[in-house]
């Protein structure tokens, strides 16, 4: 963690945004989906959920490596100066037992209206173990943050 400003910017994005774009691997083809997410305070883990009949779930079963984009664009020209985006890379896995409970609680604290969804046996809760973050701000400023394994 050698760039405190970048870390703060990522933390800010994670705190303010509720939705992210998740990319999974569909037989060698990137497959993007919009998901509701929550992140741990240390930014090392990102939680999302999906039902088990979706394409992204099928993709994750075959390849757990994912990428996730979180951004704060407002769909105006000002975005080129003001918007920030972070691309998260890592590996997704389904926690079990008490682990799942813990991450489900974190997730529901951000998205209380998804309680019924999370409680369903057909819902899979995934945690991305974050390996690397790429932060883009002011159009072309790029910082890369790697987390030790």
């Amino acid at each position, binding site marked *: 963690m050698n760039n405190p400003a970048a870390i703060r910017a990522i933390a800010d994005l994670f705190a303010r945004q509720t939705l992210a774009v998740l990319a999974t691997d569909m037989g060698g083809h990137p497959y993007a989906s919009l998901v509701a997410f929550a992140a741990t305070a240390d930014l090392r883990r990102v939680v999302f959920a999906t*039902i*088990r*009949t*979706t394409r992204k779930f099928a993709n994750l079963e075959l390849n757990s490596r994912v990428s996730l984009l979180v951004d704060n664009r407002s769909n105006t020209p000002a975005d080129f100066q003001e918007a920030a985006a972070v691309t998260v890379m890592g590996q997704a896995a389904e926690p079990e037992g008490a682990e799942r409970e813990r991450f489900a609680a974190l997730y529901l604290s951000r998205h*209380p*209206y998804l*309680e*019924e*969804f999370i*409680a*369903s*046996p*057909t*819902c899979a809760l995934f945690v991305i173990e974050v390996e690397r973050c790429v932060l883009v701000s002011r159009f072309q400023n790029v910082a890369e943050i790697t987390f030790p394994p």
Partner: protein
Amino acid sequence: MKLVVTFADEETRDRDAVGGKGCALATLAAAGFTVPRTLCVTTEAYRRYLAATGLGERIAMALGRKDFADMRWEEFWDAALRIRNLFLNTPLPSNLREELAGELAPFAGMSVAVRSSAPAEDAVEASFAGLFESFVNVQGIETILDHIRLVWASLWSDRALLYRQELGLRVGESAMGVVVQELVAGERSGVVFGVSPDNPSLAVVEAVWGLNQGLVDGTVEPDRWAVARESGAILTHFTPQREACLSPAGGRVALIPLPTERADAPPLAEREVETVFALVRAGEELFGIPQDMEWTIHGGTLYTLQSRPVTSTGPDSDDLRPWYLSLHRSFDNLGALRRHIEEELLPAMEAEAAQLAAVDTAKLSDGELADAIRDRREARRCWEDAYRRDCIPMAHGIRLFGQVYNDLLRPDTPFAFMDLLVGTEMSAVERNRMLEDLADLVRQQPELREQLRHGIFPDDPEFGEQLAAFTARFGDLGWITGTTADDAPPLAGLIMELASRPPRPVAVSAGELTERIAAFLSRFPPEERRFGENLLELGRAAYRLRDNDNIILGRIDATLHAAIEEARQRISGRWSPDLEGLDIPGPGRIAKRVQPIRPNDAEHAAVGGPRVRVRQLVGQPAGRGIAGGPARVIGHPEDLRSFRAGEVLICDAVDPNMTFVVPLAAAIIERRGGMLIHGAIIAREYGIPCVTGIPGAVERIRTGDAVTVDGYLGIVTVATEG
């Protein structure tokens, strides 16, 4: 803004702050009317509660699953119950709770009424009272706070949702005020209309013994006086059969029999009728328009409980919403209705079905056959009317039970009460069990299968006996599947298909059910246990009757089908003047409750353009579980004949006469929405995943599509290549 205000406070003149009821009461009190001691909980309290708990977003989620325009009224009830459960399970944040408890402290140790007071209610509420909830005889600060949440929840009641446009209901904007009023346990109570809805020259005074709750919800019939508006002269007095009155009992109100001296006397003397009339005239003078006022007399003092304008909207025959509101019945009212249905209506319907079925139509002359068809059509029309009048309102017993269950147990899921309604010995389940028994014989004896394959019913005596017993009770199902004499016997194919897979037992064992019931009843204090048992029995009866009445109606349909089929055979071979002009339909059209579908291939077949296909559809979870299989779209009753074991049943609407294929199904998807539709009821008996309320399900899914039905979340996924 303050959370709680008194009539002395400025806010009570602001309708947005305290709602219509609170505002009117403050105006009355200021003008010197005798009004019970009242505190108004402002809309600010509602807003703070929603903001602090995030409930607003959850309400939006519950209402946003589907476009209102696509929702059936039954689905409004489901959505309202979900929202009500959210309020029940979301406690007041502690600071808000403490503030409110402090303000309401004057009511500690007192019985109160907790009444809804919505800012927007007057326009419609005056015409259709009871869109929102009010509770009478509530005791203790904690209980009052609980009931305030229930009144808040009723801003989103099924009835309010029905009038959402008139009320201007908007999640995030609408709010509810609450009036907390000392309960005046009047000896006589009633309602007075400053102008009669039927005759503008009259006012109407209605009165009952005891509390007026019984009058308002229709449980107790009132004495009624028509008074000339001009002169104040009493013109007529209607005397009802006075039997009972509502009276505070414990933390509820109870219907108690009237002692003879009260049953024999009108609740008001003529002089008192004049006093009540004077009250409504004074109210009209104060507000400038005729009023509809609730009043009570206690210890010789006349109290005004509430006042609202009478709106002169005449009945609009195209607006069916008042009819829906009339389905909302009280416990006592439903008890009487149940006895009528079980003891009179259904036995009479069964007797007529049996009598008609005993006539061998083949032996009738053409003229007699024509008469038989006319008679049977008339019989069906009459029984359908009775069904609509009595059986449909009976379903409210299920709702009432569900509401009490949720109030008492506060379950995580609002429909947990359905678990107590399975195993009610529905006729459809009995029918399916008899079919499984026949299939069992076929499974055991391969030679029976061979005979059935060739379209002949086996000569095995046991099989023959069971088959005869089945057809005597349920017919041969040919009238449902539109089978004619030229087709293979419909039962043969069905029994073979049932025999091709292992038997499907009902999902819940008797032992499990007994445990669930015991757990439910244990939540009642001993003195209330009897009420719990009665309520459960009413709920289970309503649930069972909802299915069974259709089965009996089906037997009337079957006799009509038999007569029509006979006529069809006769006129296909020769001309018969007697059978002319009877409008004999083609085969398969008796089972009219399946809507014929118009296949919509536009999504699939835009030539040269992009191809659009459905991948995932969201409906309402109505039967737990997840399962998949090839889709079988039932567009016409005949399609039921092709149903194969392991397929997913996709239909517009099924009635209980068609649910014999359900034990074959891997899952069920129905266009009609609601937890109480027949497809869902029978699915839960077998533990089959079921999703309801998917608009265009039959058009958007095709027979053969591989579908997965998530009955936990109400999601249907259609497999697509790639």
